[in-house]
């Protein structure tokens, strides 16, 4: 039975999960959730994801939500295939967890309002909160300055291998760089820029991008 991912392909959090599945070469079916008509806030959906957010997955008997919990689960379950995304010792894993949490707690709170105000609201024809976006850009820049220092010491955030800690950054950052006119936030930082170019050149990320663009719903390696 194939893993089912419930969400909208263009949304950041489902992309995190689909990218991870592609890195691991695990087949899945994307089941479209119609965010635009508020499907995710209706009772049937709330039975599965009580916060009314995407994605959730169904893997056999297991149902799981929160994209960062899902990718941790997938990386552990499929540890034997594809790249090692969680480190090999408790200390290596701790570094992965540390930078995963940095993304969740120090990076995402600024990345989200940037993408929401500068991409999502305009697409919906709704007015954006420019001040909120501007403040978030300044905060994100300061966070990226810390990333620059780290990435001058290690090739990837948690060490010398690509891990979940790098992966979870990609979907939102892609929108910031490609759709919000903010590529300079990364381009003016030598090591961040090199890291970004490296991780977005990964075949699985390219595959995910084209899957989203072509309206894919079934993936097999």
């Amino acid at each position, binding site marked *: 039975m194939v893993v089912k991912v419930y969400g909208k392909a263009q949304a950041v959090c489902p992309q995190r999960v689909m990218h991870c599945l592609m890195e691991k070469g695990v087949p899945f079916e994307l089941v479209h959730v119609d965010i635009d008509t508020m499907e995710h806030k209706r009772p049937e959906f709330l039975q599965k994801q*009580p*916060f009314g957010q995407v994605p959730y997955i169904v893997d056999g008997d297991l149902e799981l939500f929160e994209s*960062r919990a899902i990718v941790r689960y997938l990386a*552990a379950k499929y540890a034997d295939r594809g790249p090692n995304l969680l480190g090999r010792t408790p200390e290596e894993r701790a570094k992965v967890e*540390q930078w995963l949490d940095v993304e969740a707690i120090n990076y995402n709170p600024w990345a989200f309002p940037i993408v929401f105000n500068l991409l999502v609201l305009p697409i919906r024809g709704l007015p954006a909160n420019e001040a909120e976006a501007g403040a978030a850009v300044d905060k994100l820049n300061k*966070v990226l300055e810390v990333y620059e220092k780290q990435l001058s010491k290690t090739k990837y955030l948690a060490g010398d291998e690509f891990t979940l800690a790098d992966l979870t950054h990609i979907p939102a950052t892609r929108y910031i760089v490609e759709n919000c006119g903010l590529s300079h936030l990364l381009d003016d930082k030598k090591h961040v820029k090199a890291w970004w170019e490296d991780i977005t050149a990964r075949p699985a990320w390219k595959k995910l991008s084209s899957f989203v663009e072509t309206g894919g719903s079934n993936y097999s390696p």
Partner: protein
Amino acid sequence: MGSVTVYGPPISTAVSRVLACLQEKDVDFKLVNVDMAKGQHKSPDYLKLQPFGQVPAFQDEHATLFESRAICRYICDKYANRGNQSLLGRSGGGPAERAQVEQWLEAESQSFNPPSSVLVFQLAFAPRMGLPQDPAAIELNQAKLARVLDVYERRLGESRFLAGDEFSLADLAHLPNAHHIFAARKDDMFASRKNVARWWEEISTRPSWKKVVDMYSAAPPA
């Protein structure tokens, strides 16, 4: 063993999250205060431990770490055979069991923490620091937190703890913020929800949490 050091003031919510985990795991530690009022958390020496200038930082003989929930996960992995051994799922439960804990730990960090952190600052720390409170921020975040607690109320009607039948890191992560909201006597939204109230009573009376709260009123370590 005996080389665990935690840096930060114990009353910080993120610091006390780590202390609660160390107590649950029966792992000895040294606490080194960081005087945030004097800006110690932005000093060059501290930034070597925590480059974002936040508390806590953590060291043992193998690792230097930051981010309280990442530190907690490491403590559970590294000291797997000590103290409470089901904080990341029951042993032998595999990725699926741990995934339930991770799901609710992420729910805590993404849904519970943002509004409750604002309330903790507004209700517990701003008065202490002589800063004015912001009634609009309090009202907005109480409304957001109420919606989160509605989800918890349903969940805790199906399950004794958030991730299942055992107390886990997912429950533990909530202790610091909820404690301060209760201490500021703004706990109506917890008390008025039957299952949440039952859950809170159970988790907040654990001996390990009481030991952390006792540290709040002790003199800060040198």
